[in-house]
C-alpha cells in the first residue's frame, strides 16, 4: 500500500494546536506535521516560543496579585476539592 505524501500543516492550523502539542495530545501524524512545520517556519517557532514564555510566566505569578474575581475562582476551586 502506497504512502501518500502528508499535506503540510500551515501556520493557521498550527497555532490552534499548540496546547494539544504541549500536552502530548496530538496524534502521531499531527505531531509529525506540527514539528515538520516548525522546522521550516521561523515565525511559528517564534510564536510557539512566546506561547511557552507566557505559560511559564503565568506559573511564576503570585496568586495574590490576581484580581478579586480570579481569586474567587481559586477559592471556589479549592472548596470543591479534597485536600491533597
Amino acid at each position, binding site marked *: 500500500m*502506497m504512502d*501518500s505524501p502528508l499535506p503540510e500543516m500551515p501556520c*493557521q492550523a498550527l497555532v490552534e494546536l499548540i496546547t494539544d502539542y504541549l500536552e502530548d495530545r496530538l496524534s502521531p501524524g499531527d505531531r509529525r506535521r506540527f514539528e515538520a512545520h516548525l522546522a521550516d517556519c521561523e515565525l511559528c517557532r517564534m510564536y510557539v516560543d512566546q506561547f511557552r514564555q507566557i505559560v511559564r*510566566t503565568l506559573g511564576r505569578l503570585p496568586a495574590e496579585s490576581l484580581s478579586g474575581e480570579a481569586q474567587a475562582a481559586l477559592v471556589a476551586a479549592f472548596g470543591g476539592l479534597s485536600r491533597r
Partner: protein
Amino acid sequence: MLRLALSRIDNRAIAEEVVQESWLTVLRSLDKFERRSSLRSWVLGIVVNVARSRARAERRTLTFRHPGDDAAVDPSRFLPADHPRWPHHWAVDPIPWPTPEQQLLAGETHQVILDAIGALPDTQREVLVLRDVEGLSTDDICKVLGVTDTHQRVLLHRARSRVRHAIERYFATGKKR
C-alpha cells in the same frame, strides 16, 4: 485524474494540486509498481489516496472554528485559503519581543498580563488560573469546573492565546489594554 480528484475535493485549485502531487508520487514510486493491476488503476489509486489525505487536511485546516466557537487566533492574521502561494500562512507576522522572559513580570508587562487575565471570559479565566497559575491537575480542573478534558484544553488554549496576544499588542503598540 482531475475528474477523480474533483469527485472528492470540490475546490478546483486544490484538486489540481492533488493531481500534481499524485504525478510526483507516481514518478517517485514507479519502480515499486508491481503490475498486480493495470498502470491506469494504480495511478488512479494514488490519486484517490492523495485526494483523501488532502480532503482530511483541508477539513482540519480550513475549519478552524469548532461549531459555535471562535478560533484561538484571529483569522485575519492569516492569508486566505485561495492565496496563490501561502494559503493559511501568516499575513500579520508575530514580532520578536524586546523584553526577556525573566523580565515579563518586572515592569509594565506584569500589569498587561494581569489585565489580560481579568479580561478573559469567565470559564477561560478559571481554567487558566487553576491550571497555569495554580498548577492544578487536569483531572481536578475537570471535576471542579464540570467540563470534559477536551473542553478544558480548548478553553486553556484560547485563554493562553489571548494573554500572549495582549503582550504582543503591548510590544507592538504600547497599549496596555
